[in-house]
């Protein structure tokens, strides 16, 4: 192995080591936090070294495979447990370990005094390891290992406070954890089917193969026009079939319509977990998957269209739901769903670089917002309801400033990070893809984004404290520097891919092969209009909620907009009622159905009539035939006889 390979292998190895140290040996809270943070920081160091090393290679050879051991070798199936490193993986590892390190450090103060810090930090390291395996795998099966691994860690961390009966706003942590896992499994089933279809067609699950040219990517064109007959469902090309199955996986993991219902409840976990897993990294795995397998979607335009539709609708639903929440974390949760919709829509339009760009900037500013929200919750001793806040700008000045940066970035206001990345998605859609409807909906969603952030900032920070029982204080400890560094990232993240400079674009070019974007005056005007609109929308919301609407904001009372919009507002608040529909029409009926199948089918029909009924009738015949001394033995003998008679009779007469 070369030196570069060693650095690459170290990236996932150090967090894994940290997990084992904390899980098996280390008992003190302080040491747990330190080890976990150092492990991720070490991985970040290795990731930087690996990027530098990769940068030193010429563009064509920037893909490195490191086979570790043969995982599954049965029949034609031969899967190597192997790592893969290319520019796309490189940016993902930087994001995961970089933001991950900050969140670990933040957690040291945030989780101080928790009942189970050891488990918390062990899980967090295990999560970072799994997420790294997801992005560093050289084949779909190992990717799936990471994919389900992050799901498992998400389960563990959502359920970190599993003994609590309810956390704000009325979620049962253990229930939310199980819900997240089961809903994700629906997507995972799609992923499994995709893998089986790929293997049955191409005989391999490797992306590129050991020589870089023998994986299934290079063979996709072989069967892009092979049609499969699905009976009454019509026909579909093999590649489209793969693409649709992958979409199912994406919809589950990246919380898209109609499977996003688990993400708002996932906020039951500690807030740093929401920042790391349910905003910056795990939920973006779906976007990564689409970008990684972009060859599939390039050959399956029908599936790509669906990505756009799903992403756009999710962006809109998420934004409208975020608009109406009073729980500070739930606003951000729905906002994450909405932003993921932006990314998925971008991948559907073929704007892979733009999607990755938004993934990275979103990772920075959404992690910042969640951590800052966490710091607020911490400072208010576990109050999450924004109706009880207000006036925090005075008592929490540092948090206020960084929160503003995050809000500006998310709202897409010039020159913060989100402006550049969101603009690139909109510009690509408007000018390159001519997808006008999509862009209008996305644009509207982004105005809503600015609006709900303005509302949130007003409710939280503006005016006077509404609840005087709360002793608001700002005591950051180790939480301070992660916030400040992330704020710097959220402010300057756009530098990654400035128009005309396009660093990220060039870096990803060996993977994505997208043509260099030429910036025109028209695009500049478009960008200026969108940011002006966003600023106006955000300012409007701030004025409304820090001015005339403020007197109506009381604990337990509805938002003033509810008065005007009524049930529409209520519907937004419930995420368009999708979760309710599932509860009402799937979960509860399934519970009843389960009991029904058991009682009626299993006990009464199969066992009662078929099994015992036939036993009784055989017994009855047997009793007729003889004076039974021992009924049971007679029965067996009789059945035995019937069998022999049947077979012998057949052999005599049939043969």
């Amino acid at each position, binding site marked *: 192995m070369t030196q570069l390979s060693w650095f690459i292998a170290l990236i996932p190895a150090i967090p894994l080591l940290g997990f084992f140290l904390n899980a098996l040996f280390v008992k003190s809270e302080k040491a747990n936090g330190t080890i976990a943070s150092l492990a991720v920081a070490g991985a970040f160091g290795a990731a930087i070294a690996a990027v530098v090393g990769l940068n030193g290679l010429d563009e064509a050879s920037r893909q490195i495979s490191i086979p570790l*051991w*043969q*995982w*599954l*070798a*049965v*029949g*034609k*199936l031969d899967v190597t*447990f192997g790592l893969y490193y290319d520019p796309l993986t490189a940016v993902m590892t930087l994001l995961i370990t970089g933001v991950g390190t900050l969140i670990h450090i933040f957690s040291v103060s945030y989780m101080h005094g928790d009942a189970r810090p050891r488990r918390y930090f062990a899980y967090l390291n295990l999560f970072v390891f799994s997420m790294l395996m997801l992005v560093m795998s050289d084949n779909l*099966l190992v990717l799936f*290992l990471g994919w*389900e*691994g992050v*799901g*498992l860690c998400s389960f563990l961390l959502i*359920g970190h406070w*599993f*003994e*609590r*009966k309810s956390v704000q706003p009325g979620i049962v*942590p*253990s*229930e939310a954890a*199980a819900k997240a*896992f*089961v809903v994700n*499994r629906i997507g*995972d*089933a799609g992923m*499994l*089917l995709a893998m*089986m*279809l790929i293997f*049955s067609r191409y005989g391999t699950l490797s992306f590129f193969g050991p020589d870089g040219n023998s994986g299934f990517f290079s063979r996709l064109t072989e069967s892009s026009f092979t049609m499969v007959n699905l009976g009454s469902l019509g026909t579909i090309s093999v590649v489209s079939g793969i693409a649709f199955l992958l979409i199912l996986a994406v919809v589950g993991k990246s919380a898209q319509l109609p499977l996003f219902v688990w993400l708002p409840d996932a906020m039951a976990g500690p807030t740093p977990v929401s920042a790391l897993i349910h905003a910056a990294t795990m939920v973006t795995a779906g976007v990564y998957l689409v970008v990684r397998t972009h060859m599939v979607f390039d050959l399956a335009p029908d599936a790509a269209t669906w990505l756009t539709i799903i992403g756009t609708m999710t962006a809109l639903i998420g934004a409208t739901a975020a608009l109406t929440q009073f729980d500070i974390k739930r606003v951000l949760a729905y906002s994450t769903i909405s932003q993921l919709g932006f990314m998925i829509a971008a991948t559907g339009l073929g704007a892979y670089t733009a999607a990755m760009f938004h993934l990275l900037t979103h990772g920075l500013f959404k992690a910042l917002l969640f951590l800052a929200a966490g710091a607020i919750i911490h400072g208010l001793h576990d109050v999450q309801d924004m109706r009880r806040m207000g006036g925090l700008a005075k008592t929490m000045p540092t948090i206020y400033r960084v929160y503003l940066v995050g809000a500006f970035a998310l709202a897409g206001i010039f020159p913060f990070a989100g402006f550049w990345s969101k603009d690139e998605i909109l510009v690509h859609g408007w000018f390159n893809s001519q997808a006008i409807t999509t862009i209008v909906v996305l644009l509207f969603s982004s105005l809503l984004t600015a609006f709900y952030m303005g509302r949130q900032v007003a409710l939280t920070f503006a005016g006077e404290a509404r609840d005087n029982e709360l002793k608001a204080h700002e005591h950051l400890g180790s939480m301070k520097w992660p916030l400040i560094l992330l704020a710097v990232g959220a402010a300057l993240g756009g530098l990654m891919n400035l128009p005309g400079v396009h660093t990220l674009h060039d870096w990803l070019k060996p993977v994505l092969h997208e043509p260099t974007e030429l910036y025109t005056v028209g695009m500049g005007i478009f960008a200026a209009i969108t940011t002006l609109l966003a600023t106006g929308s955000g300012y409007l919301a701030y004025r409304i909620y820090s001015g005339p609407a403020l007197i109506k904001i009381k604990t337990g009372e509805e938002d003033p907009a509810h008065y005007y919009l009524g049930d529409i507002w209520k519907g937004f608040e419930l995420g368009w009622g999708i979760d309710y529909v599932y509860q009402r029409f799937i979960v509860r009926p399934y*519970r009843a159905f*389960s*009991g029904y*199948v*058991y009682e009626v*089918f*299993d*006990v009464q029909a*199969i*066992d009662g009539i*078929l*099994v015992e009924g036939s*036993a009784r009738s055989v017994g009855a015949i047997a009793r007729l035939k003889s004076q039974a001394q021992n009924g*049971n033995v007679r*029965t*067996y003998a009789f059945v*035995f006889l019937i*069998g*022999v008679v049947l*077979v*012998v009779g*057949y*052999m005599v007469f*049939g*043969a």
Partner: protein
Amino acid sequence: MFVNQLGFPLLSLLIGTPLVGAVLIGLTASSARSLQRTIAWLFSSINAVLAVYALTALQPIGGYQFVESIDWLADIGLKYAVGLDGINVWMVVLATLLTPLALYAARNESTHQKSFHALILVLSSALIGAFVATDLLLFYVFFELTLVPTALLIATQGTGDAKAAALKFFVYPFVGSVFMLASIAGLVVTHFQQTGLMTFDSVIISGAVLNGTLVMDESLERLLFAGFFLAFAVKTPLWPFHTWMPQAQVATPSNGSVDIAGILLKIGAYGMLRFALPFFPNAAVWAAPAIGILAVISILYSAVIAFGQHDMKSLLSYATISHLGFVMLGIFSQTIEGITGALITMINSGLTTGALFLIVGILAAQRGSRNREDFSGVWLTAPTFGTLTLITVFASIGVPGLNGFVGEFLSMQGAWLAPQLGYGYVSFAVIGIILSAAYLLRMYRGVFMGAAPEEHAIHEPKTSEIAVLSLLVIAMIVIGLYPSIITSVSNASVSELVRSLTASSR
């Protein structure tokens, strides 16, 4: 008479050792409880060592090894013939390893300790016999013999309606296997008519099928296949022949459950693989779509029922039936991937479900109830136990990196590749992985998560039980990350089997 290359009858020793132990236990006084435990544990451990030795001595090539063949009734061609290959060696290893583990972790839950230990040893002996027998009639004898100790175990020491459960446990599989006996008779007679050789030797008969000296006409082959199928489908159990199983499980003492779920149920699937396929390759292909549908129904139907079960043992029984649906799907794919997947799923089901039955046994012993609603927050008061259970649960759900995934993925991949099955079956079977997450997490969430109750809090189990669970968990992780430990041994035998199936089916 022929004895294997080792120079000593390894397989007969494997069958005989537990029997000797059982006899010795029979000679002890009923009050000598620790002596009985020691004997049981000692003899089953010797057997485990022997099995591991057999595993290491086995060459990774096709065909039976360590063969012992002794004429028994030469006139009718009956032999005492046993052999080991890359497939059944795993069944033997599983059977011999789980028995001492279960005994070691056993609490004194039984007032009939003497008979409990003796019966478990007899069961272990009969199971090993059934797995290594290559003579059909000998297999049949061992196959039936497994029923006797188990039925006695349930009848004398069971809970609830034990007598009825024992009767059903005995009668139902017995009736099923009678059809197999008839089929064996039919097969042997047909073979005799066509070749002039009277034999029960499965190697000779499947060889004759392969090279065309034994040709059955279509309807005869299907009829004989049906006899085998019925016996094994009941034993497996496959929907709708499964109802005896949850009832028997619920009535069985916990440590016995480990053996039943862990090993006993695998005889059915094993027999399907070892006998029904190679004897009747055409009928197996013909019947595969129908059996595939039964397998998919097994997977989904049992998963739906498991979700609503309150008795955790009953829940796990239905979970087992669900897993065995994947086994059937893999076997009848008749591909290397599918059959290997079935083999690994059988092993997994033994390890994982065995561990889960142990866990329920531990919980029940402390609380006096198996109803999942009687528990809450066990993870708080027994953190190590809770974590080991968590890993076991996720292994059973089929999370990659743990053993369950490997088996289920290969079974489904095999079914997808099989021309007689295909993606339609897999598209439904895959729903099983969602439902299994639903029912197992519902159980785990209710029992281990939530607040700990004031009274009846569950405390950490004995060190011996933690040790046993830890060993099982380590095995789950090893198989999950390095399944070659199994496939390197089984690949040659499975490939040979699949080759012969494709060659002999028309």
